[in-house]
């Protein structure tokens, strides 16, 4: 089996695993990175969101083979950054997290959005997070959190 090489949270890694495995399972089972959650397994809920070359992707629909040569960032990698601290604080201030199962994915989607658009309007935030389902909050506190993060983190994105 050829090894599949990629950069995971800043580290170069190589794995010899079935290339058709879902990236989600590789992250959770092989690398024990359980911050990436599974909500639906079919790319609908976004709980498994990771960044691949800076763009938000559902890792449940992403075969390991396609990770070859890519830069993959999970919530564990993002958690070491200043941007994460700002997002976390903003989610606290606005009450953007309840049960928490969608929260890491929501934060990954927010990071992806802010890195492309550091000053999004409410409507742009709604579009940016529309691939991530939340059943607890009704979204408004999350929308406000992203807006607050953009303000608190001025210049970071």
């Amino acid at each position: 089996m050829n090894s599949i090489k990629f950069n995971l949270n800043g580290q170069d890694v190589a794995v010899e695993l079935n290339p058709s495995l879902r990236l989600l399972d590789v992250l959770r089972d092989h690398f024990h990175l359980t911050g990436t959650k599974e909500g639906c397994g079919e790319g609908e809920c976004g709980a498994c969101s990771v960044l691949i070359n800076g763009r938000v992707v559902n890792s449940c629909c992403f075969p390991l083979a396609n990770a070859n040569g890519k830069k993959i960032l999970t919530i564990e990698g993002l958690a070491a950054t200043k941007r994460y601290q700002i997002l976390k604080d903003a989610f606290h201030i606005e009450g953007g997290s309840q049960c928490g199962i969608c929260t890491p994915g929501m934060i990954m989607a927010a990071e992806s959005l802010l890195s492309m658009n550091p000053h999004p309007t409410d409507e742009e935030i709604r579009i940016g997070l529309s691939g991530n389902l939340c059943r607890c909050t009704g979204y408004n506190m999350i929308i406000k959190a992203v807006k607050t993060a953009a303000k608190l983190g001025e210049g970071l994105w």
Partner: protein
Amino acid sequence: MFDPNKSTPKIDHEEKCSGQAVYVSDITFDDILYAKTVRSTIAKGYIRAIGVPTLPRGYHIVDHRDVVKENYVKMILTDWPVFAVDRVNYIGEPILLVVGPDKRVIDEIVSAIQIDYEEETPVFDFVNSVVNKSFAKGDYSQAAKAAKRTIIETFNTGYQEQAYIEPQGMLAYLEEGGKVTLVGSMQCPYYIKNAVINTLGYPEDKVRVIQPAVGGAFGGKEEFPSTIACQLATAVVKIKRPIKMIFEREEDMLVTTKRHPSEITLEAKIDENNKVLGIKAHVSLDAGAYIGLSGVVLSRAMLAVTNAYTINNLDVSGDVYVTNTVPTGAFRGFGSPQMIFAIEMFMNHLAKDLGLDPYQFRLNHLVKQGDLTSTSGLYRDPIILKDMIGKAMAISDYQKKTEEYAKLDSFKGIGMSWFLHGCGFTGDGESAHIKAKVRIVKDEKDVVHLHIAAVDMGQGARTSLKRVVAMALGVENEQVVFDYPDTDLAPDSGPTVASRTMMIVGGLLARAAQNLKDNWKAGERQEIIENYQPPQYIKWDESKLQGDAYPAYSWGVNIVEVEVSPVTYEVELKGIWSVYDVGKAIDERIVIGQADGGITQGVAYGYLEVMRHENGKLRQKNLTDYIIPTSMDMPPMETIIMDNPFAYGPYGAKGAGELTLVGGAPAVALAIENAIKRRVNRIPATPEHIMELLNNE
């Protein structure tokens, strides 16, 4: 002085953002096995034979023959089997588990298993009543004689799926000495413990239940996890290795309990002054194949018949019907959303039939302090609903919009619902069945530990209950510790349901903390246990459904504005305004979070969330075809939380969790009526249904 409204950082915020919070699917062991359920593919019939392939080494089948003692899942009744024995009653009914180390091999075994059925004709209609209840208030037949007019309408509601983002899951393992331990996604650790004790026939100290982080529940993890727990407990006793079973989304959606579909008929007797003298009501609920909690859901639906109105003569009855479909069960609101939809629509329709302004007509029937409830209990506490209605109308510009949108071609609409929710268990549930107990322990370092079975499933109970204790003790939050419930440490403080957690468990904790404060001995270990005692004024007759059904009521007003596409008939939400009286908001940010999430589910129940079965097979089986709101669907919301402290609640708090859902469906349905100028008697009001309504006249 501590301010109960003040928000404090959620104690699990950091770990939930960083993904470090541990949910059941994140827990593993070196020698872990996985389990998958083989389920009935027919709606009704006998199992003639089960053909199992030769199992590879290390793989096991677990079925009813392995059940140690009782092959029923103990809930209120014991009609729900752990595993099917020789007959099945719905598509998805569990027959056996396949257990082993490799999920792919398990899948191969599952697909090689052949089940030979003798099919019978399934029942899907309301014909087999298994629970029938009734109650009366005043004298309906007298009211009928005095009335000048009778108006009858029927209302229908569909399934609603809880759609928590974390699917159901459970992990079972044996501790030394053979103690069976279950860790899982749940609302009610003691429901699970008691069900497993019953199925295994074990003594209390040989079963332990631990709650990890729970990714949403909404009632869906009230009674259902007991079924998985009994199956896994049976398996772990047989196989003696840790076993984990996590549902995939499709399995979760097809086989877990949902909100009961209902049919509600209301008949009003109206006098010459356009006053409703009496209402006769009948509620039909579809329980699916097993009764489970349906009888209690029926009670709550029936008791909500007069909602926020006072009607003096009532004749109320209801039936729970079993059908060959997936069992329905607890879902935030618990029978009340069906009835509140029906009665709110009905009151508006009555006004229109009588040629009156709906707002004035409803106001003429509005409940006030000192009135009698539907079961002739007393509304003892101050009711500030009229003030709340005024506030909601002012912030939404309701009056002006209603008139403007009434123009024929506007396709814009605004709707308003008023509602109540009885806080805590219905009737004598709390004092006769639950008998809640809390335990707090102060260690030698003067750190106070809460030992209760209340679950934080996202609603913030860990943060706000800890806050109640810190406030009562007059100490900083950091001096109080509330870890996840573990039945080895926490007594049975009751299930995390029925909007009881803050009012009942929070109340007990506040008392325990006061007791500790009064007897505080610095540097010494101290333990306080408090038991629930119902307020002395509560009088309830369960056999007649008479008296005070609830110790307190929370109140709400929802206003929803919509625009309906004249081409596709799709409904777009334009704004949501809410005012709630939950007594006292303990941590206002948490309460507003409940409010936002509750109304999102309630409104979606009214216009968006469709689930149907065809010959017993659910047609929606994942989040692609069962549509829940996304960030694009929800409009901005404005919420006002009133201050109206309840004498018996901690710092004045009543229930909040369910209240915020129950008014959403009628508010959106009334807004749709306002937009399309047709009556909505059925939810969800989908584009297809709206088209039907527009074409049928």
